């Protein structure tokens, strides 16, 4: 109806490279449309890098990958001012964060100090180095990944910092049929390299502006708030969703509606996005020390809460 052909084109383009993960691709595109950042919590080797790279390639945007290690310094991310002896001036060498799509791989491996440098830059959309500020590119999206299994020697992002990510998704392994197709395909070293851009940067900025205009009916707003209230009231959660989280859900729902060929939101948009948008913003009850993936448990709790909130008729 609207801009759908273009959004669909992005998705199709990425799907040429990543098979069988259309939901994750849709969410990534939605995240970009909503000007948010994406956190992928998943096991290694499912295509996180490929996804980020393909997204960047489809939009003809620049793409940088930062592999986080435990000895990474903030300057490695943000950049550093180098003194030119000849010119007697400092020259700023931009770090990898000055790209459109930044893949922050294994963000939980690095020290909290380094993590916070990235996160602050994400939220402020600018970098301050040596008392100078440098704005970041637009559109700007950080795709961070965390390995949920290996906790040894890691610094998992604390809940208060997770709030900065619009949604947290999981890609997961492909199903058997798809995996076979992947194995059958001729392997290319950098599959995303072969992609052609389908959208320009200006068009993407345009789309991002259009998201604001998507209509959210009053009753759906009440439904959304109902969900938020339910998380705050629930006994299983110490901390419910904050207002920032409610805003995030609202924005994401509008973006999803746009991605699906509508200029109005449906309850389905809100219901589908609630687990990915809200589950990393809530804190499970203390004393419920969960061995294993507490992220899954949080998602389960949010799903349960969704089942108890009635949809307006």
């Amino acid at each position, binding site marked *: 109806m609207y801009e759908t052909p273009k959004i669909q084109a992005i998705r199709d383009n990425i799907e040429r490279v990543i098979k069988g993960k259309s939901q994750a691709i849709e969410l990534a595109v939605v995240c970009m449309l909503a000007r948010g950042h994406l956190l992928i919590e998943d096991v290694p080797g499912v295509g996180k890098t490929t996804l980020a790279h393909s997204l960047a390639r489809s939009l003809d945007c620049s793409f940088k990958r930062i592999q986080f290690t435990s000895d990474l310094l903030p300057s490695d991310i943000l950049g550093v001012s180098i003194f030119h002896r000849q010119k007697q001036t400092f020259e700023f060498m931009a770090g990898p964060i000055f790209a459109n799509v930044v893949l922050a791989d294994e963000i939980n491996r690095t020290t909290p100090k380094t993590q916070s440098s990235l996160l602050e830059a994400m939220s402020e959309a600018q970098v301050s180095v040596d008392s100078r500020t440098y704005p970041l590119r637009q559109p700007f999206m950080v795709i961070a990944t965390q390995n949920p299994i290996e906790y040894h020697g890691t610094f998992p992002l604390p809940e208060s910092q997770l709030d900065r990510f619009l949604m947290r998704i999981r890609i997961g392994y492909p199903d058997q049929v798809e995996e076979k197709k992947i194995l059958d395909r001729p392997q290319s070293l950098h599959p995303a390299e072969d992609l052609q851009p389908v959208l320009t940067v200006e068009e993407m900025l345009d789309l991002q502006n259009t998201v604001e205009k998507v209509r959210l009916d009053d009753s*759906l707003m009440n439904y959304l708030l109902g969900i938020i209230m339910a998380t705050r009231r629930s006994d299983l959660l110490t901390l419910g969703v904050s207002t920032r989280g409610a805003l995030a859900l609202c924005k994401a729902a509008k973006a999803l509606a746009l991605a699906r060929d509508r200029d*109005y939101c*449906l*309850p*389905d948009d809100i219901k589908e996005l609630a687990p990915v948008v809200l589950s990393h913003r809530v804190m499970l009850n203390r004393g419920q020390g969960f061995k294993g993936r507490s992220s899954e448990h949080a998602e389960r709790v949010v799903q349960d809460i969704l*089942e*108890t909130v009635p*949809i307006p*008729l």
Partner: protein
Amino acid sequence: MNLERAFELSSVLLAASGFAGLTLTTDLPLLLAILGFVTLTVRLAQSCGVGSNRLSNQVLQFSPTLWNSLMVMAFVAFVVDLLWVSQDLLPAGIHFLIILMVNKLFNLRERKDFLQLYAISFVAVLASATLTTDLWFGLVFVAYLFAAIWTLLLYHLTKESHEARLAMTSPSSPVNASPFPGPITARFFWTTNGIVVGAFCLTIAIFFVIPRIGAGFFKKTRGEVIRTSGFSEKVDLGVIGAIKEDPSIVMRVEFPDQETLDTDRLYLRGAAYDLYTGRSWVNSLAYRRSLGQTAEGTFSMPNVSRGRGAGTQSTGLLQEILIEALDTSVLFGVPLVDSVVGDFPVVQTDGMGGISLPYFPSTRFQYRAHSIPNHLLEEERLATSLNYPDSIRKHFLQLPTMSTRVTELTRQIIRQAKTPHQIAVAIKQHLRTNYRYSLDVGTSVPVSPVEDFLFLRKTGYCEHYATAMVMMLRTVGIPARLVTGFLAGEWNDFGNYYTVRQRDAHAWVEVYFPRSGWITFDPTPSVAALVSNHLWTAFGRVMDSIRLKWDRLVIQYSFADQLAVARGIREGGDSARTQLSSLLSIALRWAGTWRTWFADHAPVLDWRLLGWMVGSSAIAGVIAMVWRLRKRWMGRHLLEQGLTTQVAIIQLYGRMLHLLASRGLHKNPSDTPLEFSRFATREWSHSGQYVQPLTHLYCRVRFGKVPLSPEDLAQANRLLASLRAVRR
């Protein structure tokens, strides 16, 4: 109406049904009845929220001590009542019970007050069960069952919600879910009524199945005994006349073997008398002998009293008689009774062929009688002279001192007759034609009632006619005796039985023929029964037959009946089929009798009334139909006017949900419309083509605020209609 209100209302209804039972089945002193009635109406009105609460508030404001002192006073009154006024535990107890009930109705504060009220109402119903066998009890019982189930259910639900509310306010407990939806929904109402119906059916089933093993150790029943006369050992002339105006029902006679009798005069023989003292008849052969039992409960008469002219066993007439509690122990039956089947320990007979029980029955009871009437043998009819045995001569030719005028009259009458039979017929005809039937016999007591009747007044009723005939026969040497009983003429075509009333008491004559036995002659002229065919009496007949069924199936239901039913069930298969076909034929016949009944009564029915009834019911039906359809038309009209698109689409979607719910697909409140449409398509694939476009339209209009065009609306209605037509 919310739960609390409904609970109060149903508790008051329960008390009311108990009270109704008491009023309808026993007679209460007027004051108590009025007091109870007023209390109940006030409380009912208060529970419904109607009317001012001032009165009851004022009463409620009486302090507890005042109520307690009132109760003490009432208890003292009860003791006084017991000892002096009623002198019987049950009525005094009932009066006290009503006062207790009034007290409780004004004091319903805590839970245990309600429980006490229920106990009181149950005791009331119990008391009325023991005191009556009336049809009204059935209605009271149904009302009580209805109120009891509603009350118990609401008691439980309100108690639970009280406790839950208490728990929620206490700080230590966690928040709990789903309080009961406050007001009573229509669904709840109809479901509870369904439970009531189920309970009723179960009650009936259990009632018919419980084995009746009681031996009635303390069987003490109450009820009014109908005072009748004319069947004791000595009967004064005129005694029957005293009850000739009494319309109370004495017995009901059914014929299990055949539907109707071809005659409409049914003689039911009670007792016979041989000795006439001039003023009264005495049975001198009153020595009673027990009858032997041939089969279980079957008592057979010895063959001696039957004549040879009697037909064989198979031509006998089987009657089923339900007889009220009379103050006579005589068992009635069509002459001559051959055997009696009933739940009696002992049955006795006297020398006159009368059958009686050794005790006065205190309640209504039923029995079967098999009768074989005596036929006059052809040869004896033509015989010119007959030889009577000595025993007959001794008893049945007795004459009191009478004037010779009787003899002269007799000889005058029988001048033409040659055979004894012709003599009897001549006397009968003479009496029938020459004397006027009248119940008015004047106040003066004549010296000789027979001569008074024959020569002076020339009017009288059955006793006079019969006595005169017996006397006249005896003067010419023909043995005859007086028989008293009932002459039934009222056929209830609704229930197919004869209704016998007090006023049908009758006396007639039996003449002895040596080989044929005692043959019936009735000299009383028949008076056309004034059967008013008013609608009211017809209705009365319907009620009476319902009363008979009630009595037969409920009150008199006994172990023998259960055995019969059990045996019947065991003879399963074939008999079930024949039963079914016979049931069908009965139903068809019922319909036929309805039709003929209507046809018979139609000419007498008020045409206007009938027309009115039919017309009004037709109009009512049309109005109801129009009302139902109107809503639908109006709804559609509203939609087509495009009132508010939102309302319209929500209504449409709501109708679709309702339709799918009726086919078993329920939407969870937390399912989105699209999720539900996917679910519906999965579960019922044929619905997909209608549900999906409807859902999409709904989403577009509702959330996208796209205006609803008339074409869309029409198409949506079409889709909905097609969905409705599809079967799952």
